[in-house]
């Protein structure tokens, strides 16, 4: 709401500034034209040898340049202000979401600690509570890491543990780990196809990719989640097609979902929790692997498909090999 109001005021100020500028321009032209004859006469008396045409046109042209310059500067300031406003709004949302995401596990940990302190909890329950606390601590750690790693990721200082791995093995392994982590039952996912080729990948980074894709599929499914993953290795690249039957992504939002802090809203599922960093991180990681990620969706309510493409190790260029080989950890598995 506040953002919308601010935008309205800024547009209003911009329009007023433009009107003031036009008025100034009008007054300037009017003043110049109506005083031109007076200038000529005064000029005649003061210095009859003066060449009027060039001398008198100069202040007029300079005045016009100045006014046009002012208008251009106002437009520029307005544009920057708008960008800044949008960023502030996104940042505010991000802070709100992060605060919520931090407070929930924190409340839970506090609740269990106070329960253990105040009550005589049976041993079995104690174990259950400790497991819950560990789960919350992991959640906090994941969240904090995702925020801290963004900056390192942007400076390309993260994910340097590249290794040559079997695409089939690593993708299937990571997917299974993610399904387990987000409690997707076996009957709710299917992995098909084979990718019998090698890729260069950082396991931890790729884990973040699949965790985010699975987490999103779970969060944005109105009914029971259904995930279908297919793998292939064609034309010197490994392709992973990750599809869900969730709420889908409207065409106008498909480009934006990889932007930092961007989150989609769907009235079917309001209040989906998250920070707006997930898909941004996914895109950056895939980019760091010289790969590509695209999203396909027939629209809202029609599911979402992510297509991930990674270059096969055997087909890598000299430049790519040098980039990944730079660290000495690159070796076959």
């Amino acid at each position: 709401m506040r953002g919308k109001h601010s935008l309205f005021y800024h547009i209003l100020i911009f329009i007023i500034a433009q009107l003031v500028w036009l008025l100034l321009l009008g007054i300037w032209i009017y003043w110049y034209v109506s005083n031109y004859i007076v200038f000529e006469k005064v000029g005649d008396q003061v210095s009859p040898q003066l060449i009027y045409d060039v001398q008198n046109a100069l202040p007029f042209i300079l005045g016009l340049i100045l006014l046009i310059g002012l208008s251009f500067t106002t437009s520029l300031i307005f544009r920057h202000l708008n960008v800044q406003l949008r960023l502030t709004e996104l940042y505010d949302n991000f802070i709100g979401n992060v605060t919520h995401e931090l407070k929930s596990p924190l409340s839970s940990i506090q609740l269990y600690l106070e329960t253990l302190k105040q009550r005589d909890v049976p041993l079995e329950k104690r174990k259950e509570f400790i497991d819950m606390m560990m789960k919350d601590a992991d959640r906090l750690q994941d969240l904090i890491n995702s925020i801290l790693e963004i900056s390192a990721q942007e400076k390309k200082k993260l994910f340097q543990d590249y290794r040559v791995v079997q695409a089939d093995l690593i993708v299937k392994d990571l997917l299974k780990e993610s399904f387990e982590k987000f409690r997707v039952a076996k009957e709710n996912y299917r992995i098909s196809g084979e990718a019998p080729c090698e890729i260069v990948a950082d396991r931890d980074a790729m884990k973040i990719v699949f965790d985010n894709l699975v987490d999103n599929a779970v969060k944005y499914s109105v009914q029971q989640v259904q995930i279908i993953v297919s793998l292939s290795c064609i034309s010197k690249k490994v392709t992973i097609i990750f599809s869900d039957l969730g709420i889908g992504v409207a065409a106008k939002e498909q480009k934006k979902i990889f932007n930092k802090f961007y989150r989609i809203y769907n009235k079917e599922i309001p209040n989906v929790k998250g920070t707006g960093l997930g898909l941004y991180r996914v895109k950056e990681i895939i980019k760091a692997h010289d790969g590509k990620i695209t999203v396909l969706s027939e629209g809202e309510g029609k599911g979402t498909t992510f297509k991930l493409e990674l270059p096969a190790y055997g087909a890598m260029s000299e430049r790519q090999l040098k980039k990944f080989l730079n660290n000495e950890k690159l070796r076959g598995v």
Partner: protein
Amino acid sequence: MAEDYKGSRVLLVEDEETLAVGLEYNLIEEGYIVIWAKNGREAIDFFAKEKFDLIILDIMLPYVNGFEVAEIVRKADPQIPILMLTAKTESGDKVKGLEKGADDYLTKPFHLQELLLRVNGMLKRKSWYKSSSEKQPVFKFGDNEINFETLNCLHGEEEIRLTPQEAMLLKYLVERNGEIVSRKELLENVWHLNPDIETRTVDIFIARLRKYFEPDPANPVYFKSIRGAGYMFEEK
């Protein structure tokens, strides 16, 4: 602590599993019967099918948010106590929650003891209000008729629906007909708030009651202000 209210049925609406499990355990330990709804939709379903004495309601819920749940619940049952439990801290959300029908608000992270005290306090208030209303469900003064069970009132021909908090304040004042009641006492017993807090809550609610029931709210005859002492309800 919850001796008197053992067996009270609590609907716990919380989508964070780890928090819900801990809350459920503690509420059961206090002697309450707890039904856990994992989202807004489930909460509405449970509420439609079963009877509850109190609802603990999170705001950020999947499918239907806490504000909407509170609104639906409040329409169906004007008296059930609702405790909102949320990670949101903006005062706007608190106001919205209270407007939508919540009786109390607790921000995460909270202390276990505080939560249990509030739950107990709300059940106590509900019980007092219920027994008090049963004794005298309809009360008339002037051309006003108040039904403390349905919260529907008549001011002459005009129909008014009181909020639970307004009804509770009115009940408290009516039971002390002709007595001076201080703001401190009202804050403590009707709102269960710390009376040291600077608040205009009582004045605002009294103003609302005057607007509903006084022939001329600017010159009250029923809800009188006693300078330096508080308020007094006096039936003419």
